[in-house]
């Protein structure tokens, strides 16, 4: 209906008259993109020969990536040619060439460039479409998709990607230790791959020279052969009775698991029709050719190319070397291969696999971090000159079991002043010495994950002060003292001794590098990073005394520190007050009261965080409210105090929010909260906002949450009772009725049964207490006794905790929210204390009890510090992968859901949305132009190399050289496109591209909206682990690998492409920014469900899914737009 209404407006505008460029811009800026498009179209239709109208229309379509821009430009070009405007014609023809190139139409591009040459007199060349030199191949028997299924590789993997993917899976899943770790044995995964290959070879033989399995009829002799190979037999005679049933379990398992069409075969046999199945092998390219991998002896004999795959997967070290080499570009790989022997390289394959991804040889020389300035230092450390690229990397691999290679990798991944600082020769040698230590084994590449996680975080997140020195939070003395006199014991005896003589920030840094090699929890580094991140956005760094207190309290309260990053205006005093309050709550004796106090306090702070992040609570109020909340909760002695303090906190929080932030028509707190949580919105986003309100209310209803209004009204009524007023039975009944709906957790077994079989069984004391609450009886018993009535008020404290907690849960509820809708006591089950003997009150949120039928379902435990992530974690496995084989990617998916739920886009303007869209489109355009402009290509590749690994940058370069811009773009992530466009537009003005010109115009006209900080805030992602903050931001980092202790989590946090892509999509489809609040969670759910990843660093699978969902949304939206326009036209002119 809304679409029809919009379209009707659009047609009215069409009839109303001409819009000049300024009016068009105003329409765009106010989000009336569709109307602007219609107005421009009208101009073109009314003045089809007008070059300006045609230009405005074509460029408008181009700016919004409308596919019809190609046709609009063609019309414009024809007109320009008619009017002999050669200069403009040349520009347009070049733009058409770029669009055709992006569409993959080489024939059209050739014609376009010919037109360009005719009009401009200049020549643009597109390289030959012939492919680059390919590696020799090896065959894989049978259909590739069947092999891929068995080898756990996505079905759409190209032949060139098969062996690297297989090698990776063999390395990670193919072998396990046996005989006390002395030997390796094949896992079931690898055994199945071997079994499949064996069966496939039998089937291949059956298929014969035609490479097709042909069973002419049920009675045919080869039918029995086929069934025997597959492990099935016929039950019943040929004809309609035929049923295939298992006779050999192993064979049948492989046949069905690999996707052999058993059912089609059964149908063919049943109906006595021929069964035909294409069984051609697939030739897959082998790096350096099979001979290299089969070893010297085999080389001398006839190479067993047919059995190459079996040979490869029989040796995990060879697979690891294959995997390592596959991460290098061809020039680098060739240099290394030529320098080191196969045996020697295989011995260091683990180092190459983990730390070789940034190796780069160009013109025979190693491209080292720091360039020429640091080349000497690298030569000293490695023992070979970077001028001898292959030898340099060969020596680097063999050095110290990977410590130097890991430092190389960490430094090669960063850029800017911090890298310049760290690669300064003296610094580099000093820090290498620290990280290396005396005993080098085991090196950082030995474990399953890279164990240099801390070093990567340190080099990535280190900051320099204005004096060019590393930023040390607080003061040097704080760190000296921390190392020398840590309350929980010394971190390192040697470092503790040395700390007394520290004089320089580099001394601290050296100590931190030294601790990075420790396998135990690196607390000092975590403290350093957390406090560095806290200081990052503060107008004034934290005082030394505050840093000292925070550092010493880190073990107890460290997980809470990201709260302090929410507001840049938080004072040191408020932060210290928070710590005091946490201490005070921890000292409350009764566990019930302690849990309720912590729960209520943390819930209110959680709401404060939400309102600060949404900018609902003004910056100047943030500190006052935070301080007020913290101060008041430091004095809780009993339930009555808790209820009163909680209520006062609600009042303080709501009272600080200026009028106008809420559309609630009442001052009742429940409605007010729901309204604020849903988010303030302009009229354009009311529909989206209402949807969020509905979602919030559904969750509160599903959790049987008691309204704040009811609680507060009853509290007021208790006051009036003490003044002698009559009992309000209706009010008491309302509350009692709601309480009776609270169910005890529905455990499958009785308490006795649970106690008998389970360790760590939890009690439901909190919920039981609420269930037993008979408020009416308590009130009647109290009579008019003021003191007793006050006690009754205290009985409602647990209910108040649940309501405030439920607001937090509902706000962060992931799409679907099956747990919240199914388990009615999920919120109430939150355990703020932890199992007996533990103290989880201020620890990060954890998910416990899943996969344990006696536990009454999973629940959350600990503080609310990681609530958004943990809720997403709890919900992720309810998402349904689109592919049969795929599973939801734990560690990555919660972060993606979190990134779709934490940022809200109510305050985003159409210009900001357009800014992102323009950048992504400009980035694509630059890649296309780079295909026929070698100068631009160099510039583009340099910018791309800041985020992409050398192998991918080289890959893009080769594709561009071949004129394959379409595939080149496919290899570049949206965040890289954004950076690429940003880099190029800041270097020089582009007057020829309408997209580039529009970027410059917006930058000039709306600097407040489109400056980098504003865009980063609007379209960035929260990075609680990487940046110790939930504030959305863009950090423009290379995508991280998996790291020990973090798995894919940091990789997911460094992935910034989703929101940028969604924003560009919304801009393209003319959606109001407010709609992002509803659409992004939905799109993200689809994205997650379509990911088919085969390993923990498979971000290309994320990219593929992102584009798949985007294309689907795009095509549906465009189809709907056509329908709407037709409907609107009909409504306007029903009798035409």
């Amino acid at each position, binding site marked *: 209906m809304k679409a029809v209404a919009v379209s009707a407006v659009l047609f009215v505008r069409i009839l109303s008259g001409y819009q000049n460029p300024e009016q068009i811009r105003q329409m765009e800026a106010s989000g009336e993109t569709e109307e602007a498009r219609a107005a421009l179209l009208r101009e073109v239709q009314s003045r089809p020969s007008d070059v300006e109208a045609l230009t405005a229309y074509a460029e408008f379509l181009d700016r919004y990536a409308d596919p019809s821009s190609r046709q609009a430009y063609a019309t414009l070009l024809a007109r320009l040619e008619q009017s002999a405007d050669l200069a403009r014609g040349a520009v347009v023809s070049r733009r058409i060439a770029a669009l055709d190139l992006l569409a993959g139409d080489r024939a059209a591009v050739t014609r376009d460039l010919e037109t360009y040459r005719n009009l401009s007199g200049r020549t643009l060349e597109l390289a030959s479409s012939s492919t680059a030199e390919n590696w020799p191949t090896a065959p894989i028997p049978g259909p590739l998709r069947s092999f891929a*299924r068995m080898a756990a590789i996505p079905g759409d993997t190209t032949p060139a990607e098969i062996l690297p993917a297989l090698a990776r899976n063999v390395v990670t899943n193919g072998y396990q230790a046996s005989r006390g770790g002395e030997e390796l044995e094949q896992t*079931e995964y690898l055994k199945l791959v071997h079994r499949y290959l064996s069966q496939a070879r039998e089937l291949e033989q059956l298929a014969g020279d035609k490479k097709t399995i042909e069973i002419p009829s049920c009675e045919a002799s080869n039918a029995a052969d086929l069934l025997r190979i597959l*492990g099935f037999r016929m039950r019943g005679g040929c004809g309609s009775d035929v*049923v295939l*049933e*298992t006779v050999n*379990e192993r064979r*049948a*398992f492989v046949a*069905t*698991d690999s*996707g052999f*069409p*058993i*059912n*089609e075969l059964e*149908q063919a046999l049943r109906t006595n029709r021929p069964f035909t199945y294409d069984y051609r092998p697939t030739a897959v390219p082998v790096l350096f050719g099979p001979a290299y991998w089969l070893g010297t002896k085999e080389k001398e004999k006839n190479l067993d190319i047919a059995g190459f795959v079996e040979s490869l997967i029989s040796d995990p070290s060879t697979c690891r070397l294959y995997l390592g080499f596959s991460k290098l570009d061809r020039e680098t790989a060739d240099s290394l291969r030529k320098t080191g022997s196969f045996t020697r390289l295989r011995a260091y394959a683990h180092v190459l696999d983990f730390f070789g991804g940034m190796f780069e040889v160009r013109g025979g020389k190693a491209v080292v971090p720091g360039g020429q300035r640091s080349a000497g230092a690298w030569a000293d450390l490695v023992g070979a000159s970077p001028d001898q690229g292959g030898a340099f990397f060969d020596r680097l691999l063999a050095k110290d079991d990977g410590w130097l290679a890991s430092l190389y990798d960490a430094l090669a991944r960063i850029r800017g002043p911090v890298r310049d600082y760290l690669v300064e020769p003296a610094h580099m040698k000093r820090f290498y010495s620290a990280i290396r230590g005396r005993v080098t084994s085991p090196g950082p590449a030995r474990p399953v994950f890279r164990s240099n996680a801390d070093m990567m975080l340190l080099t990535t997140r280190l900051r320099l002060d204005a004096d060019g020195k590393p930023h040390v939070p607080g003061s040097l003395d704080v760190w000296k003292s921390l190392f020398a006199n840590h309350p929980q014991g010394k971190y390192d005896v040697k470092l503790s001794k040395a700390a007394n003589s520290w004089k320089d920030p580099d001394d601290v840094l050296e100590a931190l590098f030294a601790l990075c090699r420790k396998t135990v929890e690196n607390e000092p580094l975590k403290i350093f990073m957390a406090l560095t991140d806290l200081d990052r956005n503060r107008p004034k760094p934290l005082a030394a005394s505050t840093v000292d207190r925070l550092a010493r309290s880190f073990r107890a309260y460290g997980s809470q520190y990201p709260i302090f990053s929410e507001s840049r205006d938080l004072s040191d005093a408020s932060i210290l007050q928070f710590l005091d309050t946490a201490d005070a709550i921890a000292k409350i004796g009764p566990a019930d009261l302690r849990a309720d106090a912590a729960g209520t306090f943390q819930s209110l702070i959680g709401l404060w965080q939400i309102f600060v992040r949404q900018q609902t609570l003004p910056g100047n109020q943030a500190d006052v409210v935070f301080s007020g909340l913290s101060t008041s909760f430091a004095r809780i002695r009993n339930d009555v105090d808790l209820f009163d303090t909680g209520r006062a906190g609600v009042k303080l929080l709501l009272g600080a929010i200026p009028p106008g932030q809420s559309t609630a028509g009442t001052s009742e707190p429940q409605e007010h909260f729901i309204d604020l949580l849903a988010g303030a919105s302009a009229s354009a986003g009311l529909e989206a906002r209402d949807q969020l309100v509905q979602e919030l209310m*559904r969750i509160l*209803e*599903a959790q049987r949450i008691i309204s704040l209004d009811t609680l507060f009204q009853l509290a007021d009524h208790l006051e009036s009772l003490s003044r002698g007023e009559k009992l309000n039975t209706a009010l008491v009944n309302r509350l009692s009725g709601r309480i009776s709906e609270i169910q005890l*957790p*529905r*455990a*499958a*077994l009785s308490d006795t*049964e649970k106690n008998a*079989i389970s360790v760590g069984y939890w009690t439901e004391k909190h919920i039981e207490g609420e269930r037993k609450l008979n408020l009416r009886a308590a009130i009647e018993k109290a009579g008019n006794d003021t003191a007793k009535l006050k006690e009754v008020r205290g009985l409602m404290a647990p209910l108040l905790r649940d309501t405030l907690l439920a607001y937090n849960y509902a706000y962060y509820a992931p799409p679907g929210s*099956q*747990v919240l*809708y*199914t*388990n*009615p006591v999920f919120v109430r089950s939150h355990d703020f204390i932890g199992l007996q003997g533990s103290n989880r009150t201020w620890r990060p949120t954890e*998910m416990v009890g*899943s*996969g344990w*039928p*006696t*536990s*009454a*379902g*999973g629940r959350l435990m600990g503080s609310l510090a990681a609530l958004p992530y943990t809720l997403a974690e*709890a*919900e992720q*496995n*309810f*998402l*349904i*992968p689109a592919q*049969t*084989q*795929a*599973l*939801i990617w734990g560690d990555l998916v919660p972060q993606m859901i979190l990134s779709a739920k934490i940022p809200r886009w109510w305050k985003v303007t159409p210009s900001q949305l357009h800014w992102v869209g323009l950048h992504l489109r400009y980035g694509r355009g630059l890649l296309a132009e780079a295909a026929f402009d070698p100068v631009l290509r160099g510039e583009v590749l340099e910018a791309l190399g800041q985020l992409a690994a050398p192998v991918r940058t080289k890959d893009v370069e080769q594709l561009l050289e071949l004129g394959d811009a379409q595939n080149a773009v496919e290899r570049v992530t949206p965040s890289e496109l954004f950076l690429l466009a940003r880099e190029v537009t800041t270097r020089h003005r582009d007057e020829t591209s309408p997209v580039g010109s529009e970027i410059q115009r917006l930058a000039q006209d709306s600097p407040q909206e489109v400056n980098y900080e504003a865009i980063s805030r609007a379209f960035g992602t929260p990075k609680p682990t990487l940046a110790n903050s939930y504030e959305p931001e863009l950090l423009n980092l290379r995508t991280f690998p998996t790291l020990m202790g973090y798995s894919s989590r940091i990789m997911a946090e460094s992935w910034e492409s989703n929101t940028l892509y969604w924003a560009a999509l919304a801009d393209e489809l003319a959606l109001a920014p407010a709609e992002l609040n509803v659409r992004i969670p939905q799109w993200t759910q689809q994205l997650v469900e379509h990911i088919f990843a085969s390993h923990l660093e498979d971000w290309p699978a994320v990219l593929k899914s992102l584009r798949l969902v985007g294309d689907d949304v795009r095509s549906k939206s465009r189809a709907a737009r056509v329908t709407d326009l037709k409907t609107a036209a009909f409504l306007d002119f029903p009798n035409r």
Partner: protein
Amino acid sequence: MIITRRELFGLAAGGALLRAQDSGQRPVFRVKVDMVVLAFTVTDNRNHYINGLKPSDFKIYEDGILQKLNTFAEGGKPPVGVLQDGRVQPLVEGKTEGAPGLDRPDAFVGTNVFILFDTSNFMYHGFVYAEDAIADFVRGLDRADSVAVYTFSRNLSRAANLTRDHNDAISGLRKSVAGDDTALYNGLLLTLRDAAKVPGRKVVIVFSNGPDNASMVAPDDVRAVAEDEGISIYTISTNEVNKDQISSSVFKRMAQRTGGKAYWARTWQKQVEAFEDIREDLGNSYTVTYYPAPNPNEGFRKIAVELVNDPGRKYRVHTRPGYRPGRTL
């Protein structure tokens, strides 16, 4: 089954399920929003099914309040409308434009069978035999029955969406892939959510070995959803009862409370027998629909099916004990 998806259905004034329109027009098939679908079987002392009973042979009570039946069906036969005076009349397929869920006017014919197949690591051994047993079961279903095949390990996979083409279902089954953790109750919940969207009689058949090591929801919370949606759960566990007492207890309770049955079938032959028994159960069950008479109880409503002509109480009725109205979210 409580249908609360108001927006999905054309509303019928007065709540009549079916109403033959004036002569010359085909009758319109309509569903009121709070219609209850109740399935049950009747057996004698020897556990033999009793067939051929008529609507007038039953009295259905909710919390002791007698309910007026709207439709009645036996096994896979088409349902008949029950008139005010207790007589029955055949239903005629009607046009149901704009009423998703009723785009199949025969929605209330046959049973919608959702098979939930455990493909986790626990089922690795015997996986193919289990597939054979399920395939046999699907082949033997009544033509009127629709079937969906879902598989689960840590996540759910819709191997074959609900279809009357049983061959499609088998094809989907044969494409399933084994591996990973067992999130049985998560998978069951999602299956129930899908089943709840379909009109007509629904059952879920869980084929699993029982141990769950990854679900976030508790079995009894999932069971409550099945109760409220009127979906019977049949479970076939490949584990022996004494191997996993927790799962056994859960399966028993789940089946009992939803009107289904629980089986323990370690061998392939036992699995086939279990499926055969379920098929018998489906083929010999009665399905009635009714709109609940006014009842102030918004909590659990107890259902009772009484046989009118069974003075010696020779027969046993097997059905779900009740449901909670209006809790679908």
